[in-house]
């Protein structure tokens, strides 16, 4: 590929070059222009005249030094494999390729584009958008083989820019709606993030189209962008590998990434469960899904929630049980955006398993909670104690309440007892020595309040003596 007919250099070295205000010849788009956009469109083969460049409105050489202009860029492409789904990817390359031009700066995307041309490059002879069109066409064709035909249109006439603006906005909205609907099954690459490993050495964040990072800051699209810029950095691509269980979110590639990045501490993860092999939790999670065993449901609390939750513990205490890069069943760090995912905790029953949530969070994710359950989940206004919560859930016939009846019946058969249910029974064999008595036993706490900084129950071999 040759750029000999272009008056300025073209190359990767110019990426990241900024044209400062006092060095610029013109600004196209940018904060002073209300309407500007760039749009890639997939067309059919016969709709495109290959390598045609159209300029509607004043060209660079017609512009005054130091002036500002609106701008619209249309990149129309065709090819057997070119689909509308690729428009976003193609469009993002405009940013990259314009930045390859010496003395040209391109920032932002879509309806926010901001382009500057330096005085130096203008003086070197880069005085027409025709040149930019040629550069784009050559780079697109050589870097993306699927593009068989391409035509480029630049609009600088304010009225023309305004005319096509709404159509561009509609396109972006359609594309965003598609992106929200992007599912794990449709991609073959997930992204991993180890930014938090300094706090939680065995934590590996897995970012998929349907599972945002725990911190709520990194989408699958962010992962893709970051891994491309810096593939050896803390955000990296994870080949999905084989699907072990789509519903549970188990993939060989994810498990392998866990084994490698957690140095063997975590080897198997079900992305969509808070109980079974849950995704690890760093310290940065925006919210916690925590088990409330008394009602067999999950409570949710977010970082900004002040004071205690329904079980008497504030966010900070729950966070201590959750954080550190471990897999703790029933203590699960999550992001707010994950609550908007159709796969949100789906192994555990999804929203049907959620029994308590702060109002502020509920309002934020309201539209993503299935309508029939929305009013049956308690907030801090409805219940602040477990017994109030029980009553609320029973009254609203929350799905978890159905599960209790089964459990309560079982309880009565298995554990007939005096008084009410105010004890916790710990069944099972204890081979450890307790108070000098060995063998099978049952520990019963009656009306007990227990506080412990840490309880360690360790399995010891037979004949071990206390040291």
């Amino acid at each position, binding site marked *: 590929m040759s750029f000999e007919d272009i008056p300025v250099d073209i190359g990767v070295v110019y990426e*990241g*070059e*900024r044209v*400062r*205000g*006092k060095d610029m010849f013109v600004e196209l788009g940018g*904060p002073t222009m209300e309407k500007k956009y760039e749009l890639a469109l997939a067309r059919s083969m016969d709709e495109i005249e290959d390598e045609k460049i159209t300029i509607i409105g004043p060209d660079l050489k017609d512009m005054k030094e130091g002036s500002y202009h609106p701008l619209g860029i249309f990149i129309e492409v065709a090819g057997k494999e070119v689909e509308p789904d690729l428009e*976003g990817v193609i469009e993002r390359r405009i*940013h990259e390729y314009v930045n390859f031009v010496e003395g040209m700066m391109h*920032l*932002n*995307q*879509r309806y*926010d584009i*901001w382009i500057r041309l330096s005085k130096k490059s203008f003086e070197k002879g880069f005085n027409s958008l025709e040149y930019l069109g040629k550069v784009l066409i050559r780079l697109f064709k050589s870097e993306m083989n699927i593009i068989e035909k391409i035509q480029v249109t630049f609009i600088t006439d304010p009225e023309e820019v305004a005319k096509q603006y709404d159509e561009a906005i509609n396109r*972006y909205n359609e*594309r*965003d709606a*598609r*992106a*929200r609907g992007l599912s794990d099954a449709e991609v073959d690459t997930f992204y991993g*993030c180890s*930014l*938090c490993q300094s706090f939680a050495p065995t934590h590996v964040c897995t970012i998929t189209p349907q599972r945002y*990072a725990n*911190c*709520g*800051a*990194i*989408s699958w*699209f*962010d992962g*893709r*962008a*970051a891994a491309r*810029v*810096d593939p050896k950095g*803390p955000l990296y691509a994870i080949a999905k590998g084989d699907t072990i269980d789509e519903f549970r979110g188990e993939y060989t590639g994810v498990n392998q990434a866990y084994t490698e990045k957690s140095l063997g501490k975590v080897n198997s993860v079900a992305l969509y469960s808070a109980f079974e092999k849950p995704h690890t939790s760093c310290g*940065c*999670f*925006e919210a916690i899904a925590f088990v409330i065993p008394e009602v067999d449901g999950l409570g949710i609390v977010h*970082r*900004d929630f002040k004071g205690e939750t329904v079980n008497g513990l504030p966010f900070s205490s729950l966070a201590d049980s959750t954080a550190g890069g471990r897999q703790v069943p029933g203590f699960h760090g999550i992001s*707010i*955006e994950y609550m*908007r995912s159709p796969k949100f905790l789906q192994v555990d029953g999804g929203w049907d398993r959620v029994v308590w949530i702060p109002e502020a969070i509920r309002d*934020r*994710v309201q539209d993503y909670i299935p309508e029939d359950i929305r009013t049956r989940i308690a907030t801090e206004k409805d219940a602040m104690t477990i017994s109030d919560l029980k009553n609320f859930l029973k009254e609203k016939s929350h799905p978890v309440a159905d599960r209790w009846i089964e459990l309560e019946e079982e309880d009565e058969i298995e554990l007939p007892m005096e008084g009410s249910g105010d004890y916790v029974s710990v069944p099972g064999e204890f081979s450890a020595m307790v108070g000098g008595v060995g063998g099978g036993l049952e520990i019963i706490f009656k009306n007990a309040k227990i506080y412990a900084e840490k309880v360690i129950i360790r399995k010891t071999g037979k004949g071990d003596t206390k040291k």
Partner: protein
Amino acid sequence: MRERLVISVSGKGGVGKTTTTALLTRIVTEKSKRSLLVVDADPVLNLPRALGVEVPDTVGSIATRLRKSIDDGAISGSVAKQDVLEGEIFEALIEGEQFDFLAMGRTEGEGCYCFVNRLLTQILDRLSQNYEITLLDMSAGLEHLSRRTNRNVDILIIVVDASRAAYEAALRIRDLAKEVHIEFKKIVVIGNRFPAGMEEDLQNKLAQEGLDLIGMIPNDDELAKANYQGEPLIELSRNSPAVLAVELIAEKLGLLSDTTLLKLLGKGS
């Protein structure tokens, strides 16, 4: 291509970091044609006044807004945040005739900023590569060192005044820089507002610690008055003692001529 240079000004609170930065800015813009980016990395934001610039937006408030729009689900799903952030920061950049200015400010709220901070570091690194000189006015604390926001700094200037605390802070800054493996090409000390005649003593003391005293900024009534009135220090008269002193320092640091600079960095002959 010319040498790109990142200079960071550190020291205990109140020793005169902002004054030093403002006066260096003045001298560099007046005496050289080099492109200069000045960054106020101290959330207190004193530097804008000293330079006489208005700050409509800070990097911190941009990051806070981004964080909020993420939480509200308001951000477009298929646009990468690094691209959004890069444009917004360029918008917050104040483009002056003589130098460009960026205020870091601070982030608010409790959410996690790991990712956002990482993006910021990359964006700022990239931005500063467009300038021959980047001058950073750091905050008084040492967190910025342990957070390694200083990692691409070539010259670390530590400002001390005539107090034991400032001196000890200087040594701590030096040690911490070593501990967190920030490799400055050069660490120098500036003495500010010392009584006359103390230069040699300070120089010897610092030399024993392996630190270079690169210059002294004397007490200056005009400067003190401007500070009191809140007037821009960049407008002090040309022959004010502080301005003259900083000019000498800038010369020694090689900010005004290439040869001294290369010598300082150990590259020239």
